[in-house]
Protein backbone atom coordinates (compact mmCIF):
# COMPACT_ATOMS: atom_id res chain seq x y z
CA UNK A 1 0.00 0.00 0.00
CA UNK A 2 1.40 3.36 -0.97
CA UNK A 3 1.99 6.12 1.56
CA UNK A 4 -0.48 8.44 -0.18
CA UNK A 5 -3.25 5.84 -0.08
CA UNK A 6 -2.51 5.12 3.57
CA UNK A 7 -2.72 8.80 4.35
CA UNK A 8 -6.06 9.04 2.56
CA UNK A 9 -7.42 6.01 4.40
CA UNK A 10 -6.40 7.47 7.78
CA UNK A 11 -8.07 10.74 6.79
CA UNK A 12 -11.17 8.90 5.68
CA UNK A 13 -11.40 7.15 9.03
CA UNK A 14 -10.92 10.47 10.80
CA UNK A 15 -13.78 11.97 8.79
CA UNK A 16 -15.96 8.99 9.69
CA UNK A 17 -15.00 9.50 13.33
CA UNK A 18 -16.29 13.07 13.16
CA UNK A 19 -19.47 11.88 11.46
CA UNK A 20 -20.05 9.25 14.14
CA UNK A 21 -19.49 11.81 16.91
CA UNK A 22 -22.10 14.10 15.36
CA UNK A 23 -24.55 11.24 14.89
CA UNK A 24 -24.06 10.14 18.47
CA UNK A 25 -25.11 13.61 19.51
CA UNK A 26 -28.15 13.67 17.22
CA UNK A 27 -29.76 10.38 18.25
CA UNK A 28 -33.15 10.25 19.93
CA UNK A 29 -33.29 6.63 20.98
CA UNK A 30 -31.17 4.82 23.51
CA UNK A 31 -30.49 1.79 21.30
CA UNK A 32 -29.35 4.04 18.46
CA UNK A 33 -27.02 5.91 20.83
CA UNK A 34 -25.40 2.66 21.91
CA UNK A 35 -25.13 1.44 18.32
CA UNK A 36 -23.33 4.61 17.25
CA UNK A 37 -21.13 4.32 20.33
CA UNK A 38 -20.21 0.79 19.27
CA UNK A 39 -19.50 2.09 15.76
CA UNK A 40 -17.13 4.62 17.27
CA UNK A 41 -15.27 1.81 19.03
CA UNK A 42 -14.98 -0.20 15.82
CA UNK A 43 -13.70 2.87 13.95
CA UNK A 44 -11.13 3.41 16.66
CA UNK A 45 -9.92 -0.16 16.31
CA UNK A 46 -9.73 0.23 12.53
CA UNK A 47 -7.68 3.43 12.87
CA UNK A 48 -5.31 1.82 15.33
CA UNK A 49 -4.85 -1.20 13.05
CA UNK A 50 -4.23 1.02 10.03
CA UNK A 51 -1.69 3.18 11.84
CA UNK A 52 -0.06 -0.01 13.15
CA UNK A 53 0.22 -1.23 9.55
CA UNK A 54 1.56 2.12 8.39
CA UNK A 55 4.18 2.54 11.07
CA UNK A 56 5.02 -1.13 11.56
CA UNK A 57 4.44 -0.75 15.30
CA UNK A 58 3.14 -4.13 16.44
CA UNK A 59 2.04 -2.81 19.85
CA UNK A 60 -0.69 -0.86 18.14
CA UNK A 61 -2.22 -4.09 16.83
CA UNK A 62 -2.78 -5.13 20.43
CA UNK A 63 -4.50 -1.85 21.23
CA UNK A 64 -6.59 -2.25 18.08
CA UNK A 65 -7.78 -5.64 19.27
CA UNK A 66 -8.40 -4.23 22.75
CA UNK A 67 -10.40 -1.32 21.32
CA UNK A 68 -12.48 -3.64 19.19
CA UNK A 69 -13.21 -6.04 22.04
CA UNK A 70 -13.80 -3.47 24.76
CA UNK A 71 -15.18 -0.38 23.05
CA UNK A 72 -16.76 -1.97 20.04
CA UNK A 73 -18.41 -4.92 21.71
CA UNK A 74 -18.19 -5.31 25.46
CA UNK A 75 -19.04 -1.80 26.71
CA UNK A 76 -22.02 -1.20 24.38
CA UNK A 77 -23.37 -4.65 25.26
CA UNK A 78 -22.89 -3.98 28.98
CA UNK A 79 -24.63 -0.61 28.73
CA UNK A 80 -27.45 -2.10 26.70
CA UNK A 81 -28.02 -4.74 29.37
CA UNK A 82 -28.15 -2.07 32.07
CA UNK A 83 -30.50 0.07 29.98
CA UNK A 84 -32.85 -2.86 29.44
CA UNK A 85 -32.71 -3.87 33.08
CA UNK A 86 -33.59 -0.32 34.21
CA UNK A 87 -36.24 0.16 31.49
CA UNK A 88 -34.83 3.46 30.29
CA UNK A 89 -34.44 2.39 26.68
CA UNK A 90 -37.01 4.69 25.12
CA UNK A 91 -36.23 8.31 24.46
CA UNK A 92 -33.08 10.24 25.14
CA UNK A 93 -34.13 13.55 26.64
CA UNK A 94 -31.86 16.41 25.66
CA UNK A 95 -31.84 19.61 27.72
CA UNK A 96 -32.21 21.81 24.66
CA UNK A 97 -33.55 21.14 21.20
CA UNK A 98 -31.50 19.16 18.73
CA UNK A 99 -31.02 21.94 16.19
CA UNK A 100 -29.44 24.20 18.81
CA UNK A 101 -27.24 21.37 20.06
CA UNK A 102 -26.07 20.72 16.52
CA UNK A 103 -25.28 24.41 15.98
CA UNK A 104 -23.18 24.42 19.15
CA UNK A 105 -21.51 21.27 17.89
CA UNK A 106 -20.61 23.06 14.65
CA UNK A 107 -19.17 25.93 16.68
CA UNK A 108 -17.09 23.54 18.76
CA UNK A 109 -15.75 21.86 15.63
CA UNK A 110 -14.71 25.21 14.21
CA UNK A 111 -13.07 26.08 17.52
CA UNK A 112 -11.14 22.80 17.53
CA UNK A 113 -9.91 23.47 14.01
CA UNK A 114 -8.89 27.02 14.94
CA UNK A 115 -6.90 25.82 17.96
CA UNK A 116 -5.17 22.86 16.32
CA UNK A 117 -4.40 24.34 12.92
CA UNK A 118 -1.05 26.02 13.90
CA UNK A 119 0.10 22.80 15.60
CA UNK A 120 -0.79 20.68 12.60
CA UNK A 121 1.46 22.67 10.34
CA UNK A 122 4.45 21.72 12.48
CA UNK A 123 3.68 18.00 12.61
CA UNK A 124 5.16 15.37 10.33
CA UNK A 125 3.23 12.24 11.27
CA UNK A 126 0.99 10.10 9.08
CA UNK A 127 -1.97 11.09 11.23
CA UNK A 128 -1.24 14.82 11.62
CA UNK A 129 -4.47 15.90 9.95
CA UNK A 130 -6.71 14.00 12.32
CA UNK A 131 -5.69 15.92 15.46
CA UNK A 132 -8.25 18.69 14.95
CA UNK A 133 -10.92 16.05 14.50
CA UNK A 134 -9.81 14.27 17.67
CA UNK A 135 -10.13 17.50 19.66
CA UNK A 136 -13.51 18.19 18.05
CA UNK A 137 -14.68 14.72 19.10
CA UNK A 138 -13.54 15.33 22.68
CA UNK A 139 -15.53 18.57 22.75
CA UNK A 140 -18.56 16.86 21.20
CA UNK A 141 -18.41 14.19 23.90
CA UNK A 142 -18.37 16.91 26.54
CA UNK A 143 -21.33 18.60 24.85
CA UNK A 144 -23.17 15.29 25.01
CA UNK A 145 -22.45 15.02 28.73
CA UNK A 146 -23.80 18.47 29.54
CA UNK A 147 -26.86 18.41 27.32
CA UNK A 148 -28.40 15.14 28.48
CA UNK A 149 -30.64 14.46 31.45
CA UNK A 150 -30.26 10.75 31.93
CA UNK A 151 -27.22 9.28 33.64
CA UNK A 152 -26.77 6.57 30.99
CA UNK A 153 -26.39 9.02 28.10
CA UNK A 154 -24.02 11.12 30.16
CA UNK A 155 -21.86 8.05 30.68
CA UNK A 156 -21.93 7.34 26.96
CA UNK A 157 -20.74 10.93 26.50
CA UNK A 158 -17.93 10.30 28.95
CA UNK A 159 -16.89 7.12 27.17
CA UNK A 160 -17.04 8.97 23.87
CA UNK A 161 -14.58 11.49 25.28
CA UNK A 162 -12.31 8.61 26.25
CA UNK A 163 -12.61 7.20 22.72
CA UNK A 164 -11.69 10.57 21.27
CA UNK A 165 -8.68 10.89 23.57
CA UNK A 166 -7.51 7.47 22.48
CA UNK A 167 -7.95 8.62 18.89
CA UNK A 168 -5.96 11.77 19.66
CA UNK A 169 -3.21 9.64 21.21
CA UNK A 170 -2.95 7.54 18.05
CA UNK A 171 -3.04 10.68 15.94
CA UNK A 172 -0.56 12.77 17.90
CA UNK A 173 2.06 10.22 18.92
CA UNK A 174 1.25 7.00 17.03
CA UNK A 175 -0.04 5.47 20.25
CA UNK A 176 1.00 5.48 23.88
CA UNK A 177 3.33 2.97 25.54
CA UNK A 178 1.74 -0.45 25.90
CA UNK A 179 1.60 -0.32 29.71
CA UNK A 180 -0.33 2.95 29.67
CA UNK A 181 -2.72 1.67 27.07
CA UNK A 182 -3.45 -1.54 28.92
CA UNK A 183 -3.95 0.47 32.09
CA UNK A 184 -6.41 2.83 30.43
CA UNK A 185 -8.30 -0.01 28.79
CA UNK A 186 -8.91 -1.70 32.13
CA UNK A 187 -9.63 1.60 33.84
CA UNK A 188 -12.40 2.23 31.36
CA UNK A 189 -13.78 -1.24 31.86
CA UNK A 190 -13.77 -0.83 35.64
CA UNK A 191 -15.27 2.67 35.28
CA UNK A 192 -18.10 1.25 33.19
CA UNK A 193 -18.78 -1.41 35.81
CA UNK A 194 -18.81 1.20 38.57
CA UNK A 195 -21.10 3.41 36.50
CA UNK A 196 -23.40 0.42 36.15
CA UNK A 197 -23.50 0.02 39.93
CA UNK A 198 -24.17 3.74 40.26
CA UNK A 199 -27.09 3.52 37.87
CA UNK A 200 -28.71 0.90 40.05
CA UNK A 201 -28.02 2.91 43.21
CA UNK A 202 -29.40 6.15 41.73
CA UNK A 203 -32.43 4.26 40.52
CA UNK A 204 -33.18 2.59 43.82
CA UNK A 205 -32.66 5.83 45.80
CA UNK A 206 -34.40 8.37 43.61
CA UNK A 207 -36.60 6.12 41.48
CA UNK A 208 -35.34 7.83 38.33
CA UNK A 209 -32.17 8.12 36.29
CA UNK A 210 -32.54 11.84 35.74
CA UNK A 211 -29.46 13.50 37.08
CA UNK A 212 -31.38 16.54 38.25
CA UNK A 213 -32.94 14.38 40.95
CA UNK A 214 -29.49 14.08 42.51
CA UNK A 215 -29.29 17.69 43.65
CA UNK A 216 -32.91 18.20 44.58
CA UNK A 217 -32.58 17.15 48.27
CA UNK A 218 -29.59 19.48 48.62
CA UNK A 219 -31.52 22.44 47.27
CA UNK A 220 -34.35 21.78 49.67
CA UNK A 221 -31.94 21.67 52.60
CA UNK A 222 -30.47 24.98 51.57
CA UNK A 223 -33.93 26.48 51.39
CA UNK A 224 -34.68 25.22 54.86
CA UNK A 225 -31.67 27.01 56.18
Amino acid at each position, binding site marked *: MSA*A*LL*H*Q*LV*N*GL*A*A*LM*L*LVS*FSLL*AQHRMLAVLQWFAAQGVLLAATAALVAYGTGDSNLYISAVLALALKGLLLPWLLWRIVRELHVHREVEPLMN*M*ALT*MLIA*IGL*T*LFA*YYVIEPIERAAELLTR*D*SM*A*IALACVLLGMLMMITRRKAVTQVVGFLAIENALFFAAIGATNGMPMVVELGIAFDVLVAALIFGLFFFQIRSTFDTLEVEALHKPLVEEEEER
Partner: protein
Amino acid sequence: MMPALGHLALQLLQAVLLVMIAPVAAGFVRKLKARLQNRQGAPVLQPWRDLLKLFGKEVVLAEHASWLFRTAPYVVFTATVMAATVVPALWLATPLSLTADVIALVALLALARFFMALAGMDIGTAFGGMGASREMTFSALAEPAMLVSVLVLSLHAHSTNLTAMIDYTLHVQLALHPSLAFALAAMLMIALAENGRIPIDNPATHLELTMLHEAMILEYSGRHLALMEWAAQIKLVLFATLIVDLFLPWGIATAFDATSLAVAFGVWLAKLAVLFVLLSLVETGMAKMRIFEVPEYLNAAFMLAFLGLMTYYMLEVGV
Protein backbone atom coordinates in the same frame (compact mmCIF):
# COMPACT_ATOMS: atom_id res chain seq x y z
CA MET B 1 -18.23 32.62 -36.13
CA MET B 2 -19.28 29.15 -37.23
CA PRO B 3 -18.07 27.24 -34.20
CA ALA B 4 -19.86 29.70 -31.91
CA LEU B 5 -23.09 29.08 -33.82
CA GLY B 6 -22.50 25.36 -33.51
CA HIS B 7 -22.02 25.72 -29.77
CA LEU B 8 -25.25 27.64 -29.46
CA ALA B 9 -27.07 25.01 -31.49
CA LEU B 10 -25.69 22.30 -29.25
CA GLN B 11 -26.74 24.26 -26.19
CA LEU B 12 -30.25 24.50 -27.59
CA LEU B 13 -30.30 20.82 -28.52
CA GLN B 14 -29.17 19.84 -25.05
CA ALA B 15 -31.84 21.98 -23.39
CA VAL B 16 -34.58 20.62 -25.64
CA LEU B 17 -33.37 17.09 -25.02
CA LEU B 18 -33.43 17.55 -21.26
CA VAL B 19 -36.89 19.09 -21.34
CA MET B 20 -38.24 16.36 -23.64
CA ILE B 21 -36.73 13.53 -21.65
CA ALA B 22 -38.12 14.81 -18.33
CA PRO B 23 -41.66 13.35 -18.68
CA VAL B 24 -40.21 10.07 -19.92
CA ALA B 25 -37.97 9.96 -16.87
CA ALA B 26 -40.95 10.56 -14.60
CA GLY B 27 -42.80 7.76 -16.37
CA PHE B 28 -39.76 5.51 -16.02
CA VAL B 29 -39.63 6.06 -12.25
CA ARG B 30 -43.38 5.44 -11.97
CA LYS B 31 -43.11 2.25 -14.00
CA LEU B 32 -40.19 0.99 -11.90
CA LYS B 33 -42.08 1.71 -8.70
CA ALA B 34 -45.14 -0.08 -10.00
CA ARG B 35 -43.07 -3.13 -10.96
CA LEU B 36 -41.43 -3.14 -7.53
CA GLN B 37 -44.88 -3.15 -5.98
CA ASN B 38 -45.97 -6.06 -8.21
CA ARG B 39 -48.22 -3.85 -10.30
CA GLN B 40 -48.22 -3.58 -14.06
CA GLY B 41 -48.03 0.20 -14.02
CA ALA B 42 -48.77 2.76 -16.71
CA PRO B 43 -46.56 2.82 -19.83
CA VAL B 44 -43.40 4.90 -19.64
CA LEU B 45 -44.82 7.47 -22.04
CA GLN B 46 -47.95 8.06 -19.95
CA PRO B 47 -46.74 11.40 -18.46
CA TRP B 48 -46.26 12.68 -22.01
CA ARG B 49 -49.81 11.71 -22.90
CA ASP B 50 -51.08 13.37 -19.73
CA LEU B 51 -49.24 16.56 -20.59
CA LEU B 52 -50.54 16.64 -24.17
CA LYS B 53 -54.07 16.02 -22.95
CA LEU B 54 -53.78 18.77 -20.35
CA PHE B 55 -52.48 21.21 -22.95
CA GLY B 56 -55.64 20.62 -24.98
CA LYS B 57 -57.96 21.19 -22.06
CA GLU B 58 -59.76 24.33 -21.04
CA VAL B 59 -58.30 26.35 -18.16
CA VAL B 60 -60.68 26.67 -15.23
CA LEU B 61 -59.85 29.72 -13.15
CA ALA B 62 -61.12 30.47 -9.69
CA GLU B 63 -63.20 33.63 -9.33
CA HIS B 64 -60.59 35.37 -7.21
CA ALA B 65 -57.53 34.39 -9.21
CA SER B 66 -55.36 37.42 -10.04
CA TRP B 67 -52.83 37.89 -12.82
CA LEU B 68 -50.24 36.34 -10.51
CA PHE B 69 -52.02 33.03 -10.52
CA ARG B 70 -52.16 33.08 -14.31
CA THR B 71 -48.54 34.09 -14.90
CA ALA B 72 -46.97 31.87 -12.23
CA PRO B 73 -46.97 28.66 -14.33
CA TYR B 74 -45.08 30.44 -17.12
CA VAL B 75 -42.55 31.92 -14.70
CA VAL B 76 -42.06 28.59 -12.95
CA PHE B 77 -41.66 26.72 -16.22
CA THR B 78 -39.29 29.28 -17.74
CA ALA B 79 -37.11 29.51 -14.63
CA THR B 80 -36.85 25.73 -14.41
CA VAL B 81 -35.97 25.41 -18.09
CA MET B 82 -33.36 28.18 -17.69
CA ALA B 83 -31.88 26.30 -14.75
CA ALA B 84 -31.87 23.14 -16.85
CA THR B 85 -29.90 24.84 -19.62
CA VAL B 86 -27.20 25.89 -17.15
CA VAL B 87 -26.40 22.30 -16.24
CA PRO B 88 -24.12 20.63 -18.78
CA ALA B 89 -25.56 17.25 -19.71
CA LEU B 90 -23.76 16.28 -22.90
CA TRP B 91 -20.99 18.72 -23.53
CA LEU B 92 -18.78 20.27 -20.90
CA ALA B 93 -18.40 23.80 -22.19
CA THR B 94 -21.87 24.83 -23.29
CA PRO B 95 -22.07 28.65 -23.63
CA LEU B 96 -24.66 29.11 -20.87
CA SER B 97 -22.93 26.99 -18.27
CA LEU B 98 -19.81 29.05 -18.93
CA THR B 99 -21.66 32.26 -18.10
CA ALA B 100 -23.89 31.13 -15.24
CA ASP B 101 -22.65 29.46 -12.09
CA VAL B 102 -24.07 27.29 -9.34
CA ILE B 103 -25.36 30.23 -7.37
CA ALA B 104 -27.36 31.42 -10.36
CA LEU B 105 -28.71 27.90 -10.71
CA VAL B 106 -29.89 27.80 -7.10
CA ALA B 107 -31.36 31.28 -7.49
CA LEU B 108 -33.33 30.25 -10.60
CA LEU B 109 -34.78 27.30 -8.73
CA ALA B 110 -35.59 29.60 -5.80
CA LEU B 111 -37.37 31.99 -8.19
CA ALA B 112 -39.53 29.14 -9.50
CA ARG B 113 -40.32 28.07 -5.96
CA PHE B 114 -41.14 31.63 -4.90
CA PHE B 115 -43.69 32.05 -7.67
CA MET B 116 -45.18 28.65 -6.99
CA ALA B 117 -45.69 29.62 -3.34
CA LEU B 118 -47.17 32.99 -4.35
CA ALA B 119 -49.61 31.26 -6.69
CA GLY B 120 -50.51 28.83 -3.92
CA MET B 121 -51.44 31.73 -1.66
CA ASP B 122 -53.03 33.88 -4.35
CA ILE B 123 -56.10 31.75 -4.76
CA GLY B 124 -56.92 31.93 -1.08
CA THR B 125 -57.78 28.29 -0.43
CA ALA B 126 -56.64 26.63 2.77
CA PHE B 127 -54.62 23.97 0.96
CA GLY B 128 -52.71 26.44 -1.19
CA GLY B 129 -51.69 28.60 1.73
CA MET B 130 -50.73 25.59 3.82
CA GLY B 131 -48.67 24.08 1.03
CA ALA B 132 -46.95 27.41 0.38
CA SER B 133 -46.08 27.95 4.02
CA ARG B 134 -44.69 24.42 4.35
CA GLU B 135 -42.72 24.70 1.13
CA MET B 136 -41.14 27.97 2.26
CA THR B 137 -40.30 26.56 5.71
CA PHE B 138 -38.57 23.55 4.25
CA SER B 139 -36.84 25.42 1.46
CA ALA B 140 -35.34 27.80 4.02
CA LEU B 141 -33.60 24.73 5.42
CA ALA B 142 -32.93 22.90 2.17
CA GLU B 143 -31.37 25.73 0.19
CA PRO B 144 -28.45 26.48 2.53
CA ALA B 145 -27.73 22.76 2.70
CA MET B 146 -27.67 22.52 -1.09
CA LEU B 147 -25.46 25.58 -1.42
CA VAL B 148 -23.00 24.34 1.20
CA SER B 149 -22.75 20.89 -0.37
CA VAL B 150 -22.07 22.43 -3.79
CA LEU B 151 -19.59 24.84 -2.23
CA VAL B 152 -17.56 21.89 -0.95
CA LEU B 153 -16.90 21.06 -4.58
CA SER B 154 -16.31 24.69 -5.42
CA LEU B 155 -13.62 24.77 -2.75
CA HIS B 156 -11.88 21.86 -4.43
CA ALA B 157 -12.14 23.41 -7.88
CA HIS B 158 -11.61 27.03 -6.75
CA SER B 159 -14.60 28.07 -8.80
CA THR B 160 -18.39 28.18 -8.60
CA ASN B 161 -18.65 27.71 -12.33
CA LEU B 162 -20.14 24.33 -13.20
CA THR B 163 -17.90 23.79 -16.20
CA ALA B 164 -14.78 24.55 -14.18
CA MET B 165 -15.95 22.26 -11.37
CA ILE B 166 -16.65 19.35 -13.71
CA ASP B 167 -13.38 19.95 -15.49
CA TYR B 168 -11.57 19.78 -12.16
CA THR B 169 -13.24 16.48 -11.22
CA LEU B 170 -12.40 15.05 -14.64
CA HIS B 171 -8.73 15.86 -14.40
CA VAL B 172 -7.91 15.45 -10.74
CA GLN B 173 -6.02 12.36 -9.68
CA LEU B 174 -8.35 9.79 -8.17
CA ALA B 175 -8.17 9.88 -4.41
CA LEU B 176 -10.31 9.31 -1.36
CA HIS B 177 -11.99 12.59 -0.49
CA PRO B 178 -14.16 12.32 2.63
CA SER B 179 -15.44 15.85 2.05
CA LEU B 180 -16.84 14.88 -1.35
CA ALA B 181 -18.50 11.79 0.10
CA PHE B 182 -20.22 13.97 2.70
CA ALA B 183 -21.24 16.48 0.04
CA LEU B 184 -22.66 13.70 -2.15
CA ALA B 185 -24.69 12.25 0.73
CA ALA B 186 -26.06 15.70 1.55
CA MET B 187 -26.83 16.36 -2.10
CA LEU B 188 -28.77 13.10 -2.46
CA MET B 189 -30.83 13.90 0.64
CA ILE B 190 -31.55 17.42 -0.62
CA ALA B 191 -32.48 16.14 -4.07
CA LEU B 192 -35.11 13.87 -2.51
CA ALA B 193 -36.50 16.77 -0.49
CA GLU B 194 -36.41 19.36 -3.27
CA ASN B 195 -38.25 17.13 -5.70
CA GLY B 196 -40.86 16.10 -3.17
CA ARG B 197 -39.94 12.42 -3.33
CA ILE B 198 -41.02 9.91 -0.76
CA PRO B 199 -39.49 10.36 2.64
CA ILE B 200 -40.53 14.03 2.41
CA ASP B 201 -43.55 14.21 0.16
CA ASN B 202 -45.54 11.69 -1.84
CA PRO B 203 -45.48 12.48 -5.58
CA ALA B 204 -48.35 10.06 -6.26
CA THR B 205 -50.93 11.72 -4.08
CA HIS B 206 -53.38 14.47 -4.91
CA LEU B 207 -55.34 14.73 -1.71
CA GLU B 208 -53.54 14.19 1.52
CA LEU B 209 -53.20 16.45 4.52
CA THR B 210 -49.42 16.24 4.53
CA MET B 211 -48.79 16.98 0.86
CA LEU B 212 -46.48 19.84 -0.09
CA HIS B 213 -46.03 20.30 -3.80
CA GLU B 214 -49.50 19.11 -4.80
CA ALA B 215 -51.13 21.38 -2.21
CA MET B 216 -49.76 24.44 -3.97
CA ILE B 217 -50.84 23.46 -7.48
CA LEU B 218 -54.17 21.96 -6.45
CA GLU B 219 -56.19 24.76 -8.06
CA TYR B 220 -54.47 24.60 -11.43
CA SER B 221 -56.01 23.03 -14.50
CA GLY B 222 -55.46 22.74 -18.22
CA ARG B 223 -52.22 24.07 -19.69
CA HIS B 224 -51.30 25.77 -16.41
CA LEU B 225 -51.30 22.42 -14.63
CA ALA B 226 -49.38 20.88 -17.52
CA LEU B 227 -46.65 23.53 -17.22
CA MET B 228 -46.40 23.07 -13.45
CA GLU B 229 -46.14 19.29 -13.71
CA TRP B 230 -43.68 19.50 -16.56
CA ALA B 231 -41.54 21.91 -14.54
CA ALA B 232 -41.51 19.44 -11.64
CA GLN B 233 -40.43 16.64 -13.98
CA ILE B 234 -37.68 18.81 -15.47
CA LYS B 235 -36.49 19.63 -11.99
CA LEU B 236 -36.09 15.93 -11.20
CA VAL B 237 -33.95 15.34 -14.30
CA LEU B 238 -32.04 18.54 -13.57
CA PHE B 239 -31.12 17.39 -10.08
CA ALA B 240 -30.12 13.95 -11.32
CA THR B 241 -27.95 15.54 -14.03
CA LEU B 242 -26.42 17.93 -11.51
CA ILE B 243 -25.51 15.04 -9.20
CA VAL B 244 -23.89 12.98 -11.94
CA ASP B 245 -22.17 16.10 -13.28
CA LEU B 246 -20.63 17.07 -10.00
CA PHE B 247 -19.74 13.69 -8.58
CA LEU B 248 -19.49 11.26 -11.51
CA PRO B 249 -18.78 13.38 -14.59
CA TRP B 250 -16.80 10.71 -16.47
CA GLY B 251 -18.15 10.23 -19.94
CA ILE B 252 -19.27 13.80 -20.59
CA ALA B 253 -17.99 15.15 -23.91
CA THR B 254 -15.02 17.49 -23.64
CA ALA B 255 -14.40 17.65 -27.37
CA PHE B 256 -16.87 19.12 -29.81
CA ASP B 257 -17.43 16.24 -32.26
CA ALA B 258 -20.19 13.81 -33.09
CA THR B 259 -18.74 10.60 -31.65
CA SER B 260 -17.90 11.98 -28.23
CA LEU B 261 -21.30 13.68 -28.06
CA ALA B 262 -23.05 10.43 -28.93
CA VAL B 263 -21.04 8.60 -26.28
CA ALA B 264 -21.83 11.34 -23.78
CA PHE B 265 -25.54 11.02 -24.56
CA GLY B 266 -25.51 7.28 -23.95
CA VAL B 267 -23.48 7.59 -20.77
CA TRP B 268 -25.74 10.37 -19.51
CA LEU B 269 -28.86 8.25 -20.07
CA ALA B 270 -27.25 5.26 -18.38
CA LYS B 271 -26.23 7.32 -15.34
CA LEU B 272 -29.71 8.83 -15.06
CA ALA B 273 -31.25 5.38 -15.31
CA VAL B 274 -29.06 4.10 -12.47
CA LEU B 275 -30.00 7.09 -10.29
CA PHE B 276 -33.69 6.61 -11.03
CA VAL B 277 -33.52 2.90 -10.19
CA LEU B 278 -31.97 3.90 -6.85
CA LEU B 279 -34.71 6.51 -6.40
CA SER B 280 -37.49 4.00 -6.99
CA LEU B 281 -35.84 1.55 -4.59
CA VAL B 282 -35.69 4.27 -1.91
CA GLU B 283 -39.28 5.27 -2.57
CA THR B 284 -40.52 1.70 -2.39
CA GLY B 285 -38.53 0.81 0.69
CA MET B 286 -39.28 3.84 2.81
CA ALA B 287 -42.38 5.26 4.41
CA LYS B 288 -43.15 8.95 4.23
CA MET B 289 -41.94 10.66 7.36
CA ARG B 290 -44.08 12.76 9.63
CA ILE B 291 -44.14 16.37 8.51
CA PHE B 292 -42.57 17.55 11.76
CA GLU B 293 -39.60 15.27 11.21
CA VAL B 294 -38.76 16.93 7.91
CA PRO B 295 -36.83 19.86 9.47
CA GLU B 296 -34.72 17.30 11.30
CA TYR B 297 -34.04 15.44 8.06
CA LEU B 298 -33.00 18.69 6.38
CA ASN B 299 -30.87 19.59 9.39
CA ALA B 300 -29.12 16.26 9.01
CA ALA B 301 -28.47 17.07 5.35
CA PHE B 302 -27.08 20.45 6.33
CA MET B 303 -24.87 18.82 8.97
CA LEU B 304 -23.51 16.41 6.38
CA ALA B 305 -22.77 19.24 3.96
CA PHE B 306 -21.12 21.19 6.73
CA LEU B 307 -19.04 18.17 7.77
CA GLY B 308 -17.91 18.04 4.16
CA LEU B 309 -16.80 21.65 4.42
CA MET B 310 -15.02 21.04 7.75
CA THR B 311 -13.27 17.88 6.65
CA TYR B 312 -12.09 19.69 3.55
CA TYR B 313 -10.32 22.26 5.70
CA MET B 314 -9.23 19.81 8.37
CA LEU B 315 -7.99 16.98 6.20
CA GLU B 316 -7.56 17.95 2.60
CA VAL B 317 -6.22 21.47 2.34
CA GLY B 318 -2.58 20.47 2.55
CA VAL B 319 -2.94 17.26 0.57
